[in-house]
């Protein structure tokens, strides 16, 4: 069934916004999400924020070597998570997506295990922290080279189209990724093929220290979709309902055979790029404070409060509950024990190779 009416116009100059800063529903269509769904969005955002805070602690404790802060991205990620079918649709994420991954059901103890490279990491501790992946949920393991996962995401979407599986791909990336040649090559191919894919830019306005004005002459990332022949949506990514509804529409379009969409979520990264970055050298504290006033979580709390679905006491109770869950997950991940060094020779190829067996023996003789 092809719909003849869609909720959102592509290529708007102003970001699509459904709740204002005061928490009022300002959309021109009725809210059709049930209480349960609204509470899930809220819970997912809070869990993402708290997980981000806990990661800072395990970093300081020396249990992880790296963190990519995601505070400020929660609304976009929680919204996207609810727009796809976890376990059926495929997700090609980047390294700042912990809210998104936890929200689709990626077990938090496995996220921790990846952070700390313990045996509970299904990726066997092969990569630095913030690089999860889980086949069971069709979460393609994160790779560091920026935008390099976007062409494979398109390939998976073409495969879905060829095989008529009814699945959709969602791939996320930061604003810096949109400058890479592989990003262009991927979007161009997806457009030519009409592949069922949603490209999601989490535009936090900085690629490490380089701001968006230096990244591109385009005023908006969403505008770039025009050249590839598919819609581009410019969204307030700190509005969880705008994020959800636009992502949902883009996913539905893909599922109904209308091809790709590019969705630009305007967010702000409250922390530095990573634990190895010092953001004070390239942006003012005033700027960060300005954006903290627009924090997506209190904004959604104001909305929920007006709906009669939230009180400060309930919010505090939820935080305590999630903190306990996270602590339990962290303990479980740690208890699994570190990945043994001899695992390094597994999974290079699917079949044994004499060369690697020789080298495994060299390592074993050193242990």
């Amino acid at each position, binding site marked *: 069934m092809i719909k003849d009416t869609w909720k959102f116009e592509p290529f708007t100059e102003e970001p699509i916004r459904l709740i204002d800063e005061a928490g009022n529903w300002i959309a021109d269509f009725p809210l059709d999400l049930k209480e349960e769904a609204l509470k899930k969005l809220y819970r997912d955002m809070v869990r993402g924020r708290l997980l981000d805070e806990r990661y800072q602690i395990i970093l300081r404790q020396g249990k992880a070597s790296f963190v990519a802060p995601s505070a400020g991205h929660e609304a976009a990620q929680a919204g996207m998570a609810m727009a796809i079918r976890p376990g059926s649709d*495929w997700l*090609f994420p980047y390294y700042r997506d912990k809210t998104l991954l936890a929200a689709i059901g990626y077990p938090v103890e496995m996220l921790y295990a990846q952070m700390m490279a313990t045996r509970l*990491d*299904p*990726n*066997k*501790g*092969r*990569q630095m922290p913030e*690089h999860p*992946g*889980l*086949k069971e949920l069709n979460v*393609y*393991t994160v*790779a*560091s*080279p920026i935008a*390099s*996962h*976007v*062409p*494979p*995401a*398109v*390939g*998976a*979407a*073409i*495969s*879905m189209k*060829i*095989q008529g599986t009814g699945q959709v791909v969602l791939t996320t990336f930061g604003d810096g990724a949109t400058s890479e*040649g*592989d990003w262009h*090559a*991927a979007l*161009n*191919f997806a457009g*030519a093929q009409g592949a069922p894919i949603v490209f999601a830019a989490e535009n936090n306005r900085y690629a490490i220290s380089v701001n968006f004005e230096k990244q591109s002459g385009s005023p908006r990332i969403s505008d770039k979709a025009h050249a590839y022949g598919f819609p581009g949506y410019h969204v307030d990514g700190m509005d969880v309902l705008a994020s959800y509804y636009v992502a949902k529409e883009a996913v539905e379009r893909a599922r109904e055979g209308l091809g790709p969409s590019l969705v630009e979520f305007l967010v702000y990264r409250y922390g530095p790029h990573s634990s190895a970055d010092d953001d004070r050298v390239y942006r003012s504290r005033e700027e960060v404070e300005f954006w903290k006033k627009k924090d997506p979580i209190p904004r959604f709390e104001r909305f929920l409060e007006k709906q009669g679905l939230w009180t400060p006491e309930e919010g505090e109770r939820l935080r305590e509950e999630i903190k306990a869950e996270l602590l339990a997950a962290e303990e479980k991940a740690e208890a699994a024990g570190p990945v043994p060094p001899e695992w390094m020779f*597994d*999974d*290079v*190829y*699917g*079949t044994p*190779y*004499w*060369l690697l067996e020789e080298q495994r023996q060299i390592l074993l003789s050193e242990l």
Partner: protein
Amino acid sequence: MAVMNIVQAVKRALDEEMARDERVVVLGEDVGKRGGVFLATEGLYQKYGPDRVIDTPLAEAAIIGAAVGMAAHGLRPVAEIQFADYVFPGFDQLVSQGAKLRYRSGGQFSAPMVVRMPSGGGVKGGHHHSQSPEAYFAHTAGLKVVIPSTPSDTLGLLKTAIRDDDPVVFMEPKRLYRAIKEEVPDEEFTIPLGKARVRREGKDLTLIAYGGPTVEALEAAGELEKAGVSAEVVDLRSLVPWDKEAVLESVAKTGRALVIAEAPRTASFASEVAATIMEELLDQLLAPVYRVTGFDTPYPYVPDRQYMPTVTRILNFAKKALDY
């Protein structure tokens, strides 16, 4: 038995595998109605349709990257890169995505795909149509690298590469595409990766080669025979995995070896083979192992043939080894 050349062998391998397994798809520039610029996919579009023979945009990163994603999602893509010289925009997709997908995901995902590319010189194409970039790929853990030199090996190895569960870079020596014809069995067969083939037996000297220069190695062996020297020719066929056992067995017998390849010498696969022989057989060697390779210059337009390891160059190094 049908007589066929290497291009026909590629086409037959693709056709047989596409008929056998509907997950096998072909993608690349001009692979559809045009049948590829070397006609290696001729007729496949008409037989299997646009969903399985996919004309792509002119973007190697998109071709290889999409192949990785297709493979991860369950297809068996065979990507064609028009010339090996054009693989570099797709290099990141091969080395960062395809090669490392199984490893970085702890074996959860894999990329069973083939990237075919005509490689090597001898077609008057200058440096952007003549290079032999196999060392870049052999240097990357997670990739397999196969380079056949005959029609039957091309057929049997390409079929195996398509069935392999890991990414395989399949380099086809383009100057031999139509230069060699041989009888190939009509019944289906495959050849395992990682097995060298002794193309000619001998006892005084081993000529180890792969791809295009296998032809010159065989010719040189013929010349040496006239001079009373018995040369064995070992065709590696596959660089990753490579057949160390077969190489060492031959050199242990002859005591002398030349490693012959078209690619430049520095950090080459020929160097890897030579170093391994010297590490493992030093006390049985009668002479140093010489690398007879292309020069460390960009591939020149003129002189085209003289860049490659010619029969003359092979014979000169053979003399050096025999006289040592």
